[in-house]
């Protein structure tokens, strides 16, 4: 495989067929995973661990002191009246206290929420999650099929329009859907089975976690899991690089596409790795040049100007707000083009390998 030639051809295709960018961006958006942040928990534990903060102080921060006085008297006075002096608490005491506070809050939830309403909200959340996931999978399946098919059309000098691309997205939809869903499900199940022993060991030996034998065992199993999952995920990505294209180009069933994808990956393992590494490096360089370096430069300028005076800070905030939307607009086009470029390189490699195999088979 000639990487320079592949990159040149990909660049030409990406530059010429701008409709591909739309679907390229759709693929980028539909394959992006949502992140969840559980850091909010730490704010409560910080409050609990801070020896200097007594309850009355925190009470004052959430309520108006004047209204507290009109109630049963300030908590501070209760604190003084009880004559209890604060002693540093051990971890176990802190844990017990924290659990008791949680119990109090849960018990008092009845005063804030209707329990049946909470259950209803939970059910709606689950329902929207399931429905949302279904729509996301449909989107991903369509956009991937449309992008790969559109690039094939571009490579074969055929018409590239949204209509043509959409045709590819819908053409082998069921098989593509299964190809994207089932192997990933199997991989996730394997990951779950591998991680389960680690979780079980931690739960069963919660009190003896500091024991050297447990630490060694956990380290060994974790590293083994990591290695197995790393190899499996590389294998999965390598197979899928060919299987997705086989499913769209030759309209194979998901099973046949996966099997043939495996054979193609096995036969062309070096070229596949080479392209994957070059793509990764070029993508990282692209992000570095167009996102990280400009952000660093902007941050330095903003910090410099902030030292100069408040007027400059205000000016910078206004300029940032005004520039944000155009930047996002341009950036979405960039992302679409970048995705198109990357998928084109894979399509070129696939076609090259199919051609080689046809020559070998004498077709």
């Amino acid at each position: 495989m000639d990487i320079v030639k592949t990159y040149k051809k990909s660049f030409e295709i990406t530059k010429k067929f701008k409709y591909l960018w739309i679907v390229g961006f759709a693929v980028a958006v539909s394959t992006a995973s949502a992140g969840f942040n559980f850091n909010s928990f730490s704010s409560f534990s910080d409050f609990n661990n801070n020896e200097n903060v007594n309850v009355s102080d925190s009470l004052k921060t959430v309520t108006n002191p004047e209204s507290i006085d009109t109630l049963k008297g300030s908590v501070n006075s209760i604190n003084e009246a009880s004559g209890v002096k604060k002693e540093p608490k051990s971890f176990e005491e802190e844990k017990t206290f924290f659990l008791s506070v949680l119990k109090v809050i849960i018990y008092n939830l009845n005063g804030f929420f209707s329990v049946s309403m909470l259950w209803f909200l939970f059910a709606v959340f689950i329902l929207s999650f399931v429905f949302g996931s279904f729509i996301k999978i449909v989107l991903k399946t369509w956009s991937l099929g449309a992008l790969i098919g559109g690039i094939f059309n571009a490579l074969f000098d055929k018409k590239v329009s949204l209509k043509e691309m959409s045709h590819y997205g819908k053409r082998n939809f069921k098989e593509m859907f299964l190809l994207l869903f089932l192997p990933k499900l199997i991989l996730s199940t394997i990951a779950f089975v591998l991680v389960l022993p680690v979780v079980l060991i931690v739960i069963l030996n919660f009190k003896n976690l500091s024991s050297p034998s447990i630490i060694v065992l956990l380290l060994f199993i974790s590293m083994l899991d990591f290695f197995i999952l790393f190899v499996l995920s590389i294998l999965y990505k390598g197979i899928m690089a060919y299987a997705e294209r086989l499913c769209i180009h030759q309209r194979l069933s998901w099973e046949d596409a996966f099997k043939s994808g495996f054979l193609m990956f096995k036969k062309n393992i070096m070229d596949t790795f080479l392209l994957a590494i070059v793509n990764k490096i070029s993508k990282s360089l692209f992000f570095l040049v167009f996102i990280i370096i400009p952000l660093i430069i902007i941050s330095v300028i903003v910090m410099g100007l902030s030292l100069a005076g408040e007027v400059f800070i205000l000016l910078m905030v206004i300029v940032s707000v005004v520039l944000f939307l155009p930047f996002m607009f341009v950036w979405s086009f960039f992302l679409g083009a970048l995705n198109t470029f990357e998928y084109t390189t894979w399509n070129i490699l696939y076609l090259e390998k199919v051609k080689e195999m046809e020559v070998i088979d004498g077709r």
Partner: protein
Amino acid sequence: MEDNVKTAGYLLRLLAKGIDINILFIPFFIVIKYYSVVKTTYAFLNTTMVLLVVILLAVYIGILYNTYLTSRFGGTIGKLIVGLRVVDEKGEFLTDRRAFFRCTVGYFVSGLFFGLGYFWIIKDNKNQGWHDQISETYVVQRGVSAMSVMLGIVSVFAFIIFYSLSFYSLYQDMSKNFEYIVTDFRLQINNIMYQIKDLDNSQDSSIKL
């Protein structure tokens, strides 16, 4: 599609969309209106929770509303009032599957790049947005008259005026009740803090013993 069929332009479609948005806003409005009688933390939080449920369901109800009406009647209520129909290349109404595809994948793609796909209706000679192009559909004029357009404009303005007046009265009611809610909230929080304080004290006493 036949050449003599007249497709619908951007403004007509925007008018139809305006009516639909107003219709889909009705459930939100009912829940939001309930805030005017809310006077306790309990009622406030539970009403907010119902609002959250409505917001979560709105997207999916919107999809079902769009899919069902488009496949059965050729368009949503807004489109029907203005006199527009969504059809395929043969001029027939869409199947359920195609209507679902149009209002999920189609609207998603049109929404990319800050809704550029919707503005494509202005540029395209057949007035097809990206969602029309990928689902191979056309929005055609069937029974658009001065009367239907007027009816559309009047209904959009009627909704806007109705919502504005209602929100103004809601704002007045809420500003009256806000004090009750805040006081009740403080009481509830104080109650919890006292219980926590008791726990803290009892734990410290037990340590001393």
